[in-house]
């Protein structure tokens, strides 16, 4: 589904990504771990098309299409969904109105019929239940006055509504208590299918107890320095990142 080849990117004058290679197939869950500042969130931002990141080199291919050539909204319409680490508050825009606009724009792009109010409401109710999202929050202004946990759950609710192919969860677990983490994880597990794929960006192994990944990659200094299966996450939990950093430094660049 997704192929990233030798991706190099910078923000302002600082190169953040220094040659990322990654292949994600439908039905897979990949976890990307790494210490702070290793480039994890930057990777998510580059995939979603944040404009302060400049791609210097490399390719990102989503089902045969060049993702890097697309506007952020077209990437979303093609099926890329990013759950933000810090979801923004937009006073005055109601959650539900925003979602309906988003969903219908995506459907139009995919040449699917628009959902009328009734259908949309039905879908919304269904998905709220699926991801245990509080109906009261649905009608409020987008993220305005939401707690940290509510914001993250809102991201998962949106994920459920928009049915993307590739879901990039950027530190969705940070700042969540154990109950919220469970709810968020359950939501993701219910939404997993053979047709979609997830990239979980996280600092902690904890999330991976709830959402079991097929592959684990360690990102350090803008490169993936080690890939493995879920056992790698456990090993990292036990030993930390330092042993990897050292072996990385010994390698000739």
């Amino acid at each position: 589904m997704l192929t990233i080849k030798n991706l190099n990117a910078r923000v302002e004058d600082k190169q953040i990504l220094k040659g990322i290679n990654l292949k994600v197939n439908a039905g897979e869950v990949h976890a990307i771990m790494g210490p702070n500042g290793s480039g994890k969130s930057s990777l998510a931002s580059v995939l979603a098309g944040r404009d302060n990141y400049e791609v210097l080199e490399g390719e990102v291919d989503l089902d045969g299409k060049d993702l890097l050539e697309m506007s952020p909204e077209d990437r979303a319409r093609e099926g890329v969904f990013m759950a933000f680490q810090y979801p923004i508050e937009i006073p005055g825009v109601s959650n539900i109105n925003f979602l309906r606009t988003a969903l219908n724009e995506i459907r139009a792009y995919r040449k699917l019929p628009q959902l009328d109010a009734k259908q949309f409401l039905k879908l919304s109710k269904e998905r709220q239940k699926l991801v245990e999202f509080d109906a009261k929050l649905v009608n409020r202004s987008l993220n305005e006055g939401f707690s940290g946990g509510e914001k993250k759950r809102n991201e998962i609710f949106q994920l459920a509504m928009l049915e993307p192919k590739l879901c990039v969860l950027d530190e969705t677990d940070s700042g969540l208590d154990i109950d919220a983490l469970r709810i968020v994880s359950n939501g993701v597990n219910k939404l997993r299918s053979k047709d979609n794929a997830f990239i979980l960006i996280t600092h902690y192994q904890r999330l991976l107890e709830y959402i079991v990944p097929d592959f684990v990659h360690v990102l350090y200094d803008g490169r993936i320095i080690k890939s493995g299966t879920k056992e790698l996450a456990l090993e990292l939990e036990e030993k930390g990142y330092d042993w990897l950093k050292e072996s990385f430094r010994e390698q000739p660049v």
Partner: protein
Amino acid sequence: MTKQITIPLYTELLEGFSHSDENATDDTLQKIRRAGFENFKKSGFPTRRDEDWKYTTISSFLQEQYHINGIAKELTASAELISEAIVPSLDAYQLVLVNGKLQPHNNNFPGFIKIIPISEAVIQDDVRQHFAGNSTVASGHFAALNTALFSNGLFIEISANAAIDKPLHIVHAFTSATNVFIQPRHLFVVHQGAELNVIETIVSENSLAKIFVNSLTEVIVEENASFNHYVLQTAKTGVRLVNQTDVKQKRHSVYSNYTFCMPKADLIRNNLNVALNAEQTETHLYGLYLGEDQQLIDNHSLIHHKFPHCNSNEIYKGVLLDKATGVFNGKVFVNPEAQKTNAFQQNNNLLLSNNATINTKPQLEIFADDVKCSHGATVGQLSKEAMFYLQSRGIGEEAARALLVNAFAFDVTEKIKIPELEQYINHLIALHIPGNKN
């Protein structure tokens, strides 16, 4: 005053008045007109040296040769034009005025509402006490001129303790094949304990002619009465609108004004003056202005707190595109007697084009100590972060911009108490926003 002579209109108005003075039938009314005329002669048209006209050069809209009152009296407006004012699916009583003149109507108004042309009303003694209040005539300039030379307009009165069951929709249609200077005059009296909802919509015909409208409305909100006053200005290119509204509030009354200035008209200048003439009143002024092309939209408001325990609340939001200019001035005066006043005022502006201008001046003048007053003003753009967020969810740039502008206007639009109107205003916003690039 020597400056005024250079405007052809000024001379014409002076002549126009002496002509109408000769034909006057009612002495008392003519005294009021004469007082207005003397005041106008003294003050003339405002210039940029007048603090209240610092940002609006009115003379550039007065250079043309205008026909003054009377010329377009017999005109009727086309059905299409009237239908432009329709608020979809709104059930309302409808009245139509063409160039200020009330048209025949077949509404079955409840008996407690009286609607007659202003000219018939002002000759009645009980009405005259509300007409041409001192502050209005003394303020000079356009208000004085209107008082001297108004021809047509509307008088509406709702009896004590009556409540209107559905809104009264007044369509002000303006149409002319030649340049005209029209001066409508209205008076709304909401008697004790009554409740009135009015929507005023201003529409105009597509035409090359310049139509200068100098309109003045006086509003009396008696004790314990409530008045929701919506003004929707959707006139087209060629129209120059100077619109003064003088409101007097009595004890325990509530007055809410909602002003929506929409694109196209060359000039919109609103003067909204609210005098709080008794204790425990409540006043809400909400405004939204959307400027396009070369438009100049200027909203001046004044809330005068004269008695204790009054609350006022004002929110004006502006969105400026193209080469449009927005002006906002909100005065809040608090007299020494007006202790326990709460006055809140906010003006926010979005500049969505490189060539747009905003001049804003919120203003507090406070002479009492036990008060809570605040104002705020901002000028900014749509948040890039918010745009990106919406785009990352698959919403196109234009749709995202429309959504955010709607959100920006939300503080004002959510206050509209008529859902059909709220929807319609949101629709109008969306209609004007997408085409414009940041």
